[in-house]
Protein backbone atom coordinates (compact mmCIF):
# COMPACT_ATOMS: atom_id res chain seq x y z
CA UNK A 1 0.00 0.00 0.00
CA UNK A 2 1.09 3.55 -0.72
CA UNK A 3 0.18 7.03 0.47
CA UNK A 4 0.10 9.55 -2.37
CA UNK A 5 0.44 13.10 -1.05
CA UNK A 6 -0.05 16.07 -3.33
CA UNK A 7 0.35 19.77 -2.57
CA UNK A 8 -1.38 21.64 -5.38
CA UNK A 9 -2.75 25.03 -6.39
CA UNK A 10 -6.04 25.75 -4.65
CA UNK A 11 -7.74 26.37 -7.98
CA UNK A 12 -6.77 22.90 -9.35
CA UNK A 13 -8.06 20.77 -6.50
CA UNK A 14 -11.44 19.98 -7.99
CA UNK A 15 -9.85 18.84 -11.25
CA UNK A 16 -7.54 16.59 -9.24
CA UNK A 17 -10.51 15.18 -7.36
CA UNK A 18 -12.51 14.55 -10.54
CA UNK A 19 -9.68 12.81 -12.34
CA UNK A 20 -9.08 10.53 -9.33
CA UNK A 21 -12.78 9.74 -9.08
CA UNK A 22 -12.69 8.79 -12.79
CA UNK A 23 -9.91 6.31 -11.94
CA UNK A 24 -12.13 4.69 -9.31
CA UNK A 25 -10.52 6.30 -6.24
CA UNK A 26 -13.30 6.44 -3.64
CA UNK A 27 -11.84 8.57 -0.89
CA UNK A 28 -9.23 11.15 -0.04
CA UNK A 29 -8.33 13.72 2.62
CA UNK A 30 -8.12 17.38 1.62
CA UNK A 31 -6.73 20.22 3.73
CA UNK A 32 -5.83 23.88 3.39
CA UNK A 33 -2.11 24.33 3.99
CA UNK A 34 0.53 27.05 3.83
CA UNK A 35 4.10 26.77 2.70
CA UNK A 36 6.59 27.84 0.11
CA UNK A 37 8.81 26.48 -2.62
CA UNK A 38 10.17 28.26 -5.65
CA UNK A 39 7.08 30.47 -5.92
CA UNK A 40 7.60 33.94 -4.47
CA UNK A 41 5.33 35.25 -1.71
CA UNK A 42 3.63 38.62 -2.01
CA UNK A 43 3.57 42.01 -0.31
CA UNK A 44 0.56 43.41 1.56
CA UNK A 45 0.12 47.06 2.56
CA UNK A 46 -1.86 48.25 5.59
CA UNK A 47 -1.94 52.02 6.16
CA UNK A 48 1.39 52.35 4.41
CA UNK A 49 3.14 49.58 6.35
CA UNK A 50 4.36 46.84 4.03
CA UNK A 51 4.27 43.20 5.09
CA UNK A 52 6.19 40.57 3.10
CA UNK A 53 4.17 37.35 3.13
CA UNK A 54 6.53 34.48 2.34
CA UNK A 55 4.10 31.57 2.61
CA UNK A 56 1.59 30.73 -0.08
CA UNK A 57 -1.82 29.10 0.42
CA UNK A 58 -2.03 25.60 -1.13
CA UNK A 59 -4.22 22.53 -0.87
CA UNK A 60 -2.93 19.15 0.27
CA UNK A 61 -4.60 16.01 -1.06
CA UNK A 62 -3.83 12.62 0.51
CA UNK A 63 -4.89 9.33 -1.09
CA UNK A 64 -4.29 5.77 0.14
CA UNK A 65 -3.91 3.35 -2.79
CA UNK A 66 -2.91 -0.22 -3.52
CA UNK A 67 0.65 -0.71 -4.81
CA UNK A 68 -0.46 -1.38 -8.38
CA UNK A 69 -2.54 1.80 -8.59
CA UNK A 70 0.08 4.18 -7.18
CA UNK A 71 1.73 5.10 -10.47
CA UNK A 72 -1.52 5.75 -12.29
CA UNK A 73 -2.86 7.93 -9.44
CA UNK A 74 0.39 9.87 -9.32
CA UNK A 75 0.27 10.58 -13.06
CA UNK A 76 -3.41 11.55 -12.91
CA UNK A 77 -2.73 14.09 -10.16
CA UNK A 78 0.25 15.58 -11.96
CA UNK A 79 -1.68 16.01 -15.17
CA UNK A 80 -4.74 17.50 -13.45
CA UNK A 81 -2.69 19.87 -11.28
CA UNK A 82 -0.34 21.23 -13.94
CA UNK A 83 -0.79 24.77 -15.21
CA UNK A 84 2.82 25.12 -16.32
CA UNK A 85 3.52 28.07 -14.01
CA UNK A 86 5.80 28.23 -10.96
CA UNK A 87 3.82 27.15 -7.91
CA UNK A 88 2.01 24.11 -9.33
CA UNK A 89 3.16 22.10 -6.31
CA UNK A 90 4.57 18.61 -5.69
CA UNK A 91 3.35 15.04 -5.49
CA UNK A 92 5.13 12.26 -3.63
CA UNK A 93 4.54 8.59 -2.81
CA UNK A 94 5.41 6.91 0.48
CA UNK A 95 5.06 3.25 1.53
CA UNK A 96 2.36 2.46 4.10
CA UNK A 97 2.85 -0.32 6.67
CA UNK A 98 -0.74 -1.00 7.72
CA UNK A 99 -4.27 0.34 7.27
CA UNK A 100 -7.42 -0.40 9.32
CA UNK A 101 -10.98 0.57 8.41
CA UNK A 102 -12.35 1.81 11.75
CA UNK A 103 -15.97 0.69 11.30
CA UNK A 104 -15.38 -2.93 10.25
CA UNK A 105 -11.88 -3.65 11.47
CA UNK A 106 -10.84 -4.74 7.92
CA UNK A 107 -7.10 -4.44 7.41
CA UNK A 108 -4.60 -4.09 4.56
CA UNK A 109 -5.77 -3.67 0.98
CA UNK A 110 -9.34 -4.60 2.02
CA UNK A 111 -9.42 -1.39 4.02
CA UNK A 112 -8.53 0.86 1.08
Amino acid at each position, binding site marked *: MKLVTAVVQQTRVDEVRQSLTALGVRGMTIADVQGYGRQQGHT*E*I*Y*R*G*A*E*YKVDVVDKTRVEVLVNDVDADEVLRAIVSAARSGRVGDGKVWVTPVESVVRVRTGETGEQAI
Partner: protein
Amino acid sequence: MNSGDTAWVLVCAALVMLMTPGLALFYGGMVRSRGVLNMLMMSLGSLGVVGVLWVIYGYSGAFGADLGGLGLLGSPSEFFGMSRLVGQEGLSDTIPTFAFAAFQAMFAILTVALISGAIADRARFGPWLLFAGLWASLVYFPVAHWVFAFDETNAAGEVTAVGGWIANRIAAIDFAGGTAVHINAGAAALALVLVLGPRSGWPKETGKPHNLPLVVLGAGLLWFGWFGFNAGSALTAGTTAAIVFVNTLVGASAAMLAWMLVERLRHGRPTTLGAVSGIIAGLVAITPACSAVTPLGAIAVGAVSGAVCALAVELKYRLRYDDSLDVVGVHLVGGLVGTLLVGLFASASAPAGVAGLFYGGGLDQLWRQAVGALAVFAYSLVLSLGIAWVVRATIGFRLSTADEDAGIDETEHAETGYHFGETRNTLRGSRTSEHGSVEALEGSVR
Protein backbone atom coordinates in the same frame (compact mmCIF):
# COMPACT_ATOMS: atom_id res chain seq x y z
CA MET B 1 -41.85 71.72 23.54
CA ASN B 2 -41.50 70.54 19.94
CA SER B 3 -42.29 66.88 19.34
CA GLY B 4 -40.46 66.78 15.99
CA ASP B 5 -37.25 68.13 17.50
CA THR B 6 -37.57 65.82 20.48
CA ALA B 7 -38.03 62.76 18.28
CA TRP B 8 -35.06 63.79 16.14
CA VAL B 9 -32.69 64.25 19.08
CA LEU B 10 -33.75 60.98 20.72
CA VAL B 11 -33.25 59.07 17.46
CA CYS B 12 -29.86 60.77 16.99
CA ALA B 13 -28.86 59.75 20.51
CA ALA B 14 -29.55 56.14 19.56
CA LEU B 15 -27.56 56.60 16.34
CA VAL B 16 -24.57 57.93 18.27
CA MET B 17 -24.85 55.07 20.77
CA LEU B 18 -24.42 52.64 17.86
CA MET B 19 -21.11 54.29 17.02
CA THR B 20 -19.42 52.76 20.06
CA PRO B 21 -20.15 49.11 19.16
CA GLY B 22 -19.34 50.14 15.57
CA LEU B 23 -16.00 51.50 16.76
CA ALA B 24 -15.43 48.26 18.66
CA LEU B 25 -15.79 46.27 15.42
CA PHE B 26 -13.72 48.83 13.48
CA TYR B 27 -10.88 48.47 15.98
CA GLY B 28 -11.44 44.75 16.60
CA GLY B 29 -10.91 43.79 12.98
CA MET B 30 -7.63 45.70 12.88
CA VAL B 31 -5.81 43.75 15.60
CA ARG B 32 -4.53 40.17 15.58
CA SER B 33 -7.23 37.55 16.06
CA ARG B 34 -5.96 36.69 19.55
CA GLY B 35 -6.64 40.23 20.75
CA VAL B 36 -10.00 40.91 19.09
CA LEU B 37 -12.12 40.43 22.21
CA ASN B 38 -10.07 42.78 24.38
CA MET B 39 -10.35 45.40 21.66
CA LEU B 40 -14.14 45.01 21.69
CA MET B 41 -14.20 45.00 25.49
CA MET B 42 -12.36 48.30 25.85
CA SER B 43 -15.15 50.02 23.91
CA LEU B 44 -17.86 48.12 25.79
CA GLY B 45 -16.13 49.11 29.03
CA SER B 46 -16.65 52.75 28.14
CA LEU B 47 -20.37 52.12 27.60
CA GLY B 48 -20.45 50.79 31.16
CA VAL B 49 -18.19 53.14 33.11
CA VAL B 50 -18.91 56.40 31.31
CA GLY B 51 -22.65 55.68 30.98
CA VAL B 52 -22.95 55.38 34.76
CA LEU B 53 -20.64 58.31 35.56
CA TRP B 54 -22.52 60.53 33.12
CA VAL B 55 -25.77 60.05 34.99
CA ILE B 56 -24.19 60.41 38.44
CA TYR B 57 -22.18 63.62 37.91
CA GLY B 58 -20.91 63.82 34.32
CA TYR B 59 -23.90 65.63 32.86
CA SER B 60 -23.87 68.04 35.76
CA GLY B 61 -20.13 68.70 35.44
CA ALA B 62 -20.49 69.44 31.75
CA PHE B 63 -23.82 71.28 31.71
CA GLY B 64 -24.52 72.29 35.29
CA ALA B 65 -24.29 75.93 36.38
CA ASP B 66 -20.83 77.32 35.70
CA LEU B 67 -18.60 77.38 38.79
CA GLY B 68 -17.46 80.94 39.45
CA GLY B 69 -18.35 82.20 35.98
CA LEU B 70 -14.96 81.15 34.64
CA GLY B 71 -16.29 78.85 31.94
CA LEU B 72 -14.10 75.98 33.14
CA LEU B 73 -16.48 73.53 34.81
CA GLY B 74 -20.15 73.06 35.56
CA SER B 75 -21.30 72.28 39.07
CA PRO B 76 -21.03 68.50 39.50
CA SER B 77 -23.57 68.60 42.33
CA GLU B 78 -26.36 70.64 40.72
CA PHE B 79 -27.81 67.75 38.77
CA PHE B 80 -26.16 64.95 40.79
CA GLY B 81 -27.82 61.71 39.73
CA MET B 82 -30.02 63.75 37.38
CA SER B 83 -32.73 63.66 40.07
CA ARG B 84 -33.45 67.38 39.90
CA LEU B 85 -33.96 67.12 36.15
CA VAL B 86 -36.98 64.88 36.61
CA GLY B 87 -40.09 66.97 36.12
CA GLN B 88 -38.12 69.99 34.86
CA GLU B 89 -39.06 71.85 31.74
CA GLY B 90 -37.13 71.56 28.53
CA LEU B 91 -33.95 73.01 27.11
CA SER B 92 -34.90 76.33 25.44
CA ASP B 93 -38.45 75.00 25.55
CA THR B 94 -37.97 72.93 22.38
CA ILE B 95 -36.71 69.56 23.62
CA PRO B 96 -36.68 67.97 27.07
CA THR B 97 -33.37 68.40 28.88
CA PHE B 98 -33.30 64.62 29.24
CA ALA B 99 -33.17 64.24 25.44
CA PHE B 100 -30.13 66.54 25.37
CA ALA B 101 -28.56 64.69 28.30
CA ALA B 102 -29.07 61.34 26.56
CA PHE B 103 -27.60 62.65 23.31
CA GLN B 104 -24.54 64.11 25.05
CA ALA B 105 -24.03 60.92 27.09
CA MET B 106 -23.22 59.06 23.88
CA PHE B 107 -20.54 61.62 23.02
CA ALA B 108 -18.79 61.08 26.33
CA ILE B 109 -18.92 57.29 25.91
CA LEU B 110 -17.61 57.37 22.34
CA THR B 111 -14.78 59.80 23.12
CA VAL B 112 -13.36 57.53 25.83
CA ALA B 113 -13.73 54.45 23.60
CA LEU B 114 -11.83 56.20 20.77
CA ILE B 115 -8.69 56.35 22.95
CA SER B 116 -8.48 52.57 23.29
CA GLY B 117 -7.30 52.01 19.72
CA ALA B 118 -3.88 53.39 20.60
CA ILE B 119 -3.10 50.75 23.23
CA ALA B 120 -4.16 47.52 21.52
CA ASP B 121 -2.94 44.20 22.94
CA ARG B 122 -1.10 45.49 25.98
CA ALA B 123 -3.30 47.22 28.58
CA ARG B 124 -4.80 45.26 31.48
CA PHE B 125 -8.56 45.57 31.47
CA GLY B 126 -9.16 46.71 35.07
CA PRO B 127 -6.65 49.57 34.85
CA TRP B 128 -8.22 50.58 31.51
CA LEU B 129 -11.62 50.89 33.21
CA LEU B 130 -10.03 52.96 35.98
CA PHE B 131 -8.34 55.19 33.41
CA ALA B 132 -11.62 55.52 31.50
CA GLY B 133 -13.47 56.70 34.61
CA LEU B 134 -10.74 59.12 35.73
CA TRP B 135 -10.26 60.51 32.23
CA ALA B 136 -13.97 61.06 31.67
CA SER B 137 -14.21 62.84 35.05
CA LEU B 138 -11.09 65.01 34.87
CA VAL B 139 -10.78 65.61 31.12
CA TYR B 140 -13.93 64.94 29.11
CA PHE B 141 -16.60 66.44 31.40
CA PRO B 142 -14.72 69.76 31.83
CA VAL B 143 -13.78 70.00 28.15
CA ALA B 144 -17.37 69.27 27.12
CA HIS B 145 -18.31 72.24 29.32
CA TRP B 146 -15.72 74.45 27.61
CA VAL B 147 -16.93 73.56 24.14
CA PHE B 148 -20.58 72.53 24.29
CA ALA B 149 -22.09 74.62 27.13
CA PHE B 150 -23.43 77.84 25.63
CA ASP B 151 -24.30 81.00 27.52
CA GLU B 152 -27.99 81.39 28.29
CA THR B 153 -29.39 84.78 27.39
CA ASN B 154 -32.67 86.56 28.05
CA ALA B 155 -34.88 88.33 25.51
CA ALA B 156 -32.73 91.47 25.75
CA GLY B 157 -29.60 89.48 24.82
CA GLU B 158 -28.08 89.72 28.31
CA VAL B 159 -26.21 86.66 29.57
CA THR B 160 -28.20 85.03 32.36
CA ALA B 161 -26.03 81.95 32.78
CA VAL B 162 -22.39 81.66 31.77
CA GLY B 163 -21.26 78.69 29.62
CA GLY B 164 -17.88 77.28 28.58
CA TRP B 165 -14.97 79.56 27.77
CA ILE B 166 -14.08 78.15 24.35
CA ALA B 167 -17.65 78.25 23.06
CA ASN B 168 -18.47 81.72 24.38
CA ARG B 169 -15.38 83.79 25.25
CA ILE B 170 -13.17 82.55 22.40
CA ALA B 171 -16.16 81.77 20.15
CA ALA B 172 -14.33 78.95 18.39
CA ILE B 173 -16.69 77.00 16.14
CA ASP B 174 -16.83 73.33 17.05
CA PHE B 175 -20.23 72.16 15.98
CA ALA B 176 -20.10 68.52 17.06
CA GLY B 177 -16.75 67.91 18.70
CA GLY B 178 -13.60 68.30 16.63
CA THR B 179 -11.87 69.62 19.74
CA ALA B 180 -13.91 68.11 22.58
CA VAL B 181 -14.10 64.64 21.03
CA HIS B 182 -11.34 64.07 18.49
CA ILE B 183 -8.42 66.31 19.50
CA ASN B 184 -9.25 65.40 23.08
CA ALA B 185 -9.21 61.63 22.47
CA GLY B 186 -6.21 61.86 20.13
CA ALA B 187 -4.11 63.72 22.70
CA ALA B 188 -5.06 61.19 25.37
CA ALA B 189 -4.10 58.37 23.00
CA LEU B 190 -0.67 59.96 22.50
CA ALA B 191 -0.23 60.24 26.27
CA LEU B 192 -1.19 56.59 26.86
CA VAL B 193 1.20 55.38 24.18
CA LEU B 194 4.03 57.36 25.77
CA VAL B 195 3.30 55.95 29.24
CA LEU B 196 2.59 52.34 28.21
CA GLY B 197 5.27 51.93 25.53
CA PRO B 198 5.06 49.81 22.39
CA ARG B 199 3.66 46.30 22.06
CA SER B 200 6.12 43.45 22.46
CA GLY B 201 7.81 42.94 19.10
CA TRP B 202 6.63 46.23 17.59
CA PRO B 203 6.88 47.14 14.76
CA LYS B 204 7.97 43.88 13.15
CA GLU B 205 5.95 41.21 14.92
CA THR B 206 2.69 42.81 15.93
CA GLY B 207 0.69 41.39 13.06
CA LYS B 208 -1.63 42.66 10.38
CA PRO B 209 -5.36 43.36 10.66
CA HIS B 210 -7.03 39.96 11.06
CA ASN B 211 -10.49 40.76 9.62
CA LEU B 212 -10.92 43.66 7.21
CA PRO B 213 -14.61 42.90 6.50
CA LEU B 214 -15.21 43.49 10.23
CA VAL B 215 -13.37 46.81 9.91
CA VAL B 216 -15.61 47.79 6.98
CA LEU B 217 -18.74 46.82 8.94
CA GLY B 218 -17.54 48.95 11.85
CA ALA B 219 -16.79 51.89 9.57
CA GLY B 220 -20.26 51.59 8.07
CA LEU B 221 -21.88 51.69 11.50
CA LEU B 222 -19.69 54.66 12.43
CA TRP B 223 -20.65 56.62 9.32
CA PHE B 224 -24.34 55.80 9.88
CA GLY B 225 -24.14 56.90 13.49
CA TRP B 226 -22.15 59.98 12.55
CA PHE B 227 -25.22 61.46 10.84
CA GLY B 228 -26.79 61.46 14.30
CA PHE B 229 -23.61 62.82 15.84
CA ASN B 230 -23.37 65.83 13.51
CA ALA B 231 -26.90 66.50 12.28
CA GLY B 232 -28.30 65.74 15.75
CA SER B 233 -26.05 68.43 17.19
CA ALA B 234 -28.40 70.96 15.57
CA LEU B 235 -30.80 69.91 18.37
CA THR B 236 -33.64 70.72 16.01
CA ALA B 237 -35.04 68.91 12.98
CA GLY B 238 -34.63 71.65 10.40
CA THR B 239 -32.45 73.30 7.80
CA THR B 240 -29.25 73.26 9.84
CA ALA B 241 -29.54 69.52 10.46
CA ALA B 242 -30.16 68.90 6.76
CA ILE B 243 -27.16 70.94 5.57
CA VAL B 244 -24.97 69.31 8.20
CA PHE B 245 -26.21 65.91 7.03
CA VAL B 246 -25.10 66.55 3.44
CA ASN B 247 -21.76 67.95 4.60
CA THR B 248 -21.22 64.82 6.72
CA LEU B 249 -21.83 62.67 3.66
CA VAL B 250 -19.65 64.53 1.22
CA GLY B 251 -16.79 65.31 3.61
CA ALA B 252 -16.30 61.59 4.21
CA SER B 253 -16.69 60.76 0.52
CA ALA B 254 -14.01 63.26 -0.49
CA ALA B 255 -11.67 62.09 2.26
CA MET B 256 -11.98 58.48 1.17
CA LEU B 257 -11.02 59.42 -2.39
CA ALA B 258 -8.12 61.54 -1.17
CA TRP B 259 -6.73 58.77 1.07
CA MET B 260 -6.94 56.24 -1.77
CA LEU B 261 -5.21 58.67 -4.12
CA VAL B 262 -2.32 59.15 -1.69
CA GLU B 263 -2.01 55.37 -1.36
CA ARG B 264 -2.11 54.86 -5.10
CA LEU B 265 0.69 57.40 -5.58
CA ARG B 266 2.87 56.24 -2.66
CA HIS B 267 2.33 52.49 -2.57
CA GLY B 268 0.81 51.59 -5.92
CA ARG B 269 -2.57 50.30 -4.71
CA PRO B 270 -5.73 51.75 -3.17
CA THR B 271 -6.52 49.53 -0.16
CA THR B 272 -9.71 48.63 1.68
CA LEU B 273 -8.24 49.71 5.00
CA GLY B 274 -7.16 52.97 3.39
CA ALA B 275 -10.66 53.61 2.04
CA VAL B 276 -12.37 53.15 5.41
CA SER B 277 -9.60 55.07 7.18
CA GLY B 278 -10.24 57.91 4.76
CA ILE B 279 -13.94 57.81 5.59
CA ILE B 280 -13.17 58.17 9.30
CA ALA B 281 -10.58 60.91 8.68
CA GLY B 282 -13.17 62.84 6.69
CA LEU B 283 -15.87 62.38 9.32
CA VAL B 284 -13.49 63.55 12.04
CA ALA B 285 -12.55 66.70 10.14
CA ILE B 286 -16.09 67.63 9.11
CA THR B 287 -17.35 67.20 12.68
CA PRO B 288 -16.32 70.68 13.90
CA ALA B 289 -16.89 72.26 10.48
CA CYS B 290 -20.19 70.80 9.33
CA SER B 291 -22.32 73.82 10.29
CA ALA B 292 -19.82 76.39 9.07
CA VAL B 293 -19.07 75.36 5.49
CA THR B 294 -20.97 74.92 2.25
CA PRO B 295 -21.07 71.44 0.66
CA LEU B 296 -18.17 72.49 -1.59
CA GLY B 297 -16.31 73.60 1.49
CA ALA B 298 -17.05 70.19 3.05
CA ILE B 299 -15.46 68.50 0.04
CA ALA B 300 -12.34 70.63 0.54
CA VAL B 301 -12.19 69.92 4.29
CA GLY B 302 -12.66 66.19 3.69
CA ALA B 303 -10.12 65.98 0.90
CA VAL B 304 -7.43 67.81 2.90
CA SER B 305 -8.06 65.63 5.95
CA GLY B 306 -8.01 62.39 3.96
CA ALA B 307 -4.68 63.26 2.35
CA VAL B 308 -3.03 64.67 5.49
CA CYS B 309 -4.12 61.73 7.69
CA ALA B 310 -2.96 59.21 5.07
CA LEU B 311 0.52 60.74 5.39
CA ALA B 312 0.27 61.20 9.16
CA VAL B 313 -0.33 57.52 9.98
CA GLU B 314 3.11 56.65 8.62
CA LEU B 315 4.89 59.09 10.96
CA LYS B 316 4.69 56.79 13.97
CA TYR B 317 7.31 54.50 12.44
CA ARG B 318 9.74 57.43 12.14
CA LEU B 319 8.89 58.89 15.54
CA ARG B 320 9.01 55.43 17.14
CA TYR B 321 5.73 55.35 19.05
CA ASP B 322 3.26 52.48 18.79
CA ASP B 323 -0.09 54.21 18.30
CA SER B 324 -1.47 50.81 17.34
CA LEU B 325 -4.63 51.74 15.41
CA ASP B 326 -3.67 55.35 14.56
CA VAL B 327 -5.84 57.28 16.99
CA VAL B 328 -3.26 60.08 16.83
CA GLY B 329 -2.85 59.92 13.07
CA VAL B 330 -6.60 59.98 12.37
CA HIS B 331 -8.38 61.61 15.32
CA LEU B 332 -5.80 64.09 16.61
CA VAL B 333 -4.55 65.07 13.16
CA GLY B 334 -8.01 64.95 11.55
CA GLY B 335 -9.48 66.91 14.46
CA LEU B 336 -6.80 69.59 14.13
CA VAL B 337 -7.27 69.77 10.36
CA GLY B 338 -11.05 70.13 10.62
CA THR B 339 -10.96 72.63 13.47
CA LEU B 340 -8.36 74.85 11.80
CA LEU B 341 -9.92 74.63 8.33
CA VAL B 342 -13.09 76.23 9.75
CA GLY B 343 -10.94 79.36 9.90
CA LEU B 344 -10.25 79.08 6.17
CA PHE B 345 -13.38 77.57 4.62
CA ALA B 346 -16.18 78.94 6.84
CA SER B 347 -18.84 80.62 4.73
CA ALA B 348 -21.19 83.31 6.01
CA SER B 349 -24.00 81.62 4.07
CA ALA B 350 -23.68 78.40 6.13
CA PRO B 351 -25.77 78.01 9.33
CA ALA B 352 -22.94 79.18 11.63
CA GLY B 353 -22.90 82.48 9.70
CA VAL B 354 -19.16 83.14 10.00
CA ALA B 355 -16.76 83.86 7.15
CA GLY B 356 -13.27 82.34 7.12
CA LEU B 357 -10.12 83.57 5.40
CA PHE B 358 -11.03 82.21 1.94
CA TYR B 359 -14.54 83.68 2.18
CA GLY B 360 -13.57 87.25 3.00
CA GLY B 361 -13.54 86.92 6.78
CA GLY B 362 -9.85 87.55 7.37
CA LEU B 363 -7.87 85.80 10.07
CA ASP B 364 -10.25 86.44 12.96
CA GLN B 365 -11.91 83.04 13.04
CA LEU B 366 -8.67 81.17 12.34
CA TRP B 367 -6.98 82.32 15.55
CA ARG B 368 -10.11 81.48 17.54
CA GLN B 369 -10.01 77.98 16.09
CA ALA B 370 -6.30 77.66 16.86
CA VAL B 371 -6.74 78.73 20.48
CA GLY B 372 -9.57 76.25 21.00
CA ALA B 373 -7.66 73.41 19.38
CA LEU B 374 -4.39 74.03 21.20
CA ALA B 375 -6.07 74.52 24.57
CA VAL B 376 -7.88 71.18 24.37
CA PHE B 377 -4.76 69.44 23.03
CA ALA B 378 -2.51 70.75 25.80
CA TYR B 379 -5.01 70.16 28.62
CA SER B 380 -5.82 66.63 27.47
CA LEU B 381 -2.18 65.68 26.89
CA VAL B 382 -0.98 66.89 30.30
CA LEU B 383 -3.91 65.50 32.30
CA SER B 384 -3.83 62.19 30.42
CA LEU B 385 -0.11 61.77 31.07
CA GLY B 386 -0.79 62.39 34.76
CA ILE B 387 -3.74 60.00 35.00
CA ALA B 388 -1.96 57.24 33.09
CA TRP B 389 1.13 57.68 35.24
CA VAL B 390 -0.93 57.45 38.44
CA VAL B 391 -2.72 54.30 37.24
CA ARG B 392 0.62 52.75 36.30
CA ALA B 393 2.21 53.69 39.63
CA THR B 394 -0.67 52.40 41.78
CA ILE B 395 -2.25 49.29 40.30
CA GLY B 396 -0.06 48.86 37.20
CA PHE B 397 -1.33 49.36 33.67
CA ARG B 398 0.55 47.03 31.35
CA LEU B 399 0.15 43.37 30.68
CA SER B 400 3.25 41.28 31.44
CA THR B 401 5.27 40.36 28.35
CA ALA B 402 4.44 36.69 28.95
CA ASP B 403 0.70 37.40 29.00
CA GLU B 404 1.06 39.66 25.99
CA ASP B 405 2.75 36.87 24.06
CA ALA B 406 0.12 34.36 25.17
CA GLY B 407 -2.61 36.66 23.87
CA ILE B 408 -4.59 39.26 25.78
CA ASP B 409 -7.97 37.60 25.14
CA GLU B 410 -6.93 34.45 26.99
CA THR B 411 -5.10 36.16 29.83
CA GLU B 412 -7.47 39.10 30.50
CA HIS B 413 -10.85 37.63 29.54
CA ALA B 414 -10.42 33.81 29.52
CA GLU B 415 -11.97 33.61 26.05
CA THR B 416 -10.92 33.29 22.43
CA GLY B 417 -12.68 35.08 19.61
CA TYR B 418 -12.90 32.37 17.00
CA HIS B 419 -13.63 28.64 17.13
CA PHE B 420 -13.77 27.78 13.44
CA GLY B 421 -13.79 24.04 12.75
CA GLU B 422 -15.41 21.30 14.79
CA THR B 423 -12.08 19.67 15.65
CA ARG B 424 -10.64 22.78 17.24
CA ASN B 425 -13.89 23.48 19.06
CA THR B 426 -14.05 19.95 20.49
CA LEU B 427 -10.39 19.82 21.45
CA ARG B 428 -10.65 23.08 23.37
CA GLY B 429 -14.13 22.63 24.73
CA SER B 430 -14.04 20.17 27.65
CA ARG B 431 -15.54 21.76 30.72
CA THR B 432 -13.36 21.58 33.80
CA SER B 433 -14.88 23.63 36.60
CA GLU B 434 -17.33 22.14 39.12
CA HIS B 435 -19.60 25.07 38.58
CA GLY B 436 -19.99 24.54 34.86
CA SER B 437 -19.40 20.80 34.63
CA VAL B 438 -21.77 18.55 32.73
CA GLU B 439 -22.42 16.57 35.95
CA ALA B 440 -23.53 19.69 37.80
CA LEU B 441 -25.81 20.58 34.90
CA GLU B 442 -27.45 17.14 34.89
CA GLY B 443 -27.90 17.36 38.66
CA SER B 444 -29.74 20.63 38.39
CA VAL B 445 -32.06 19.29 35.70
CA ARG B 446 -33.12 16.42 37.98
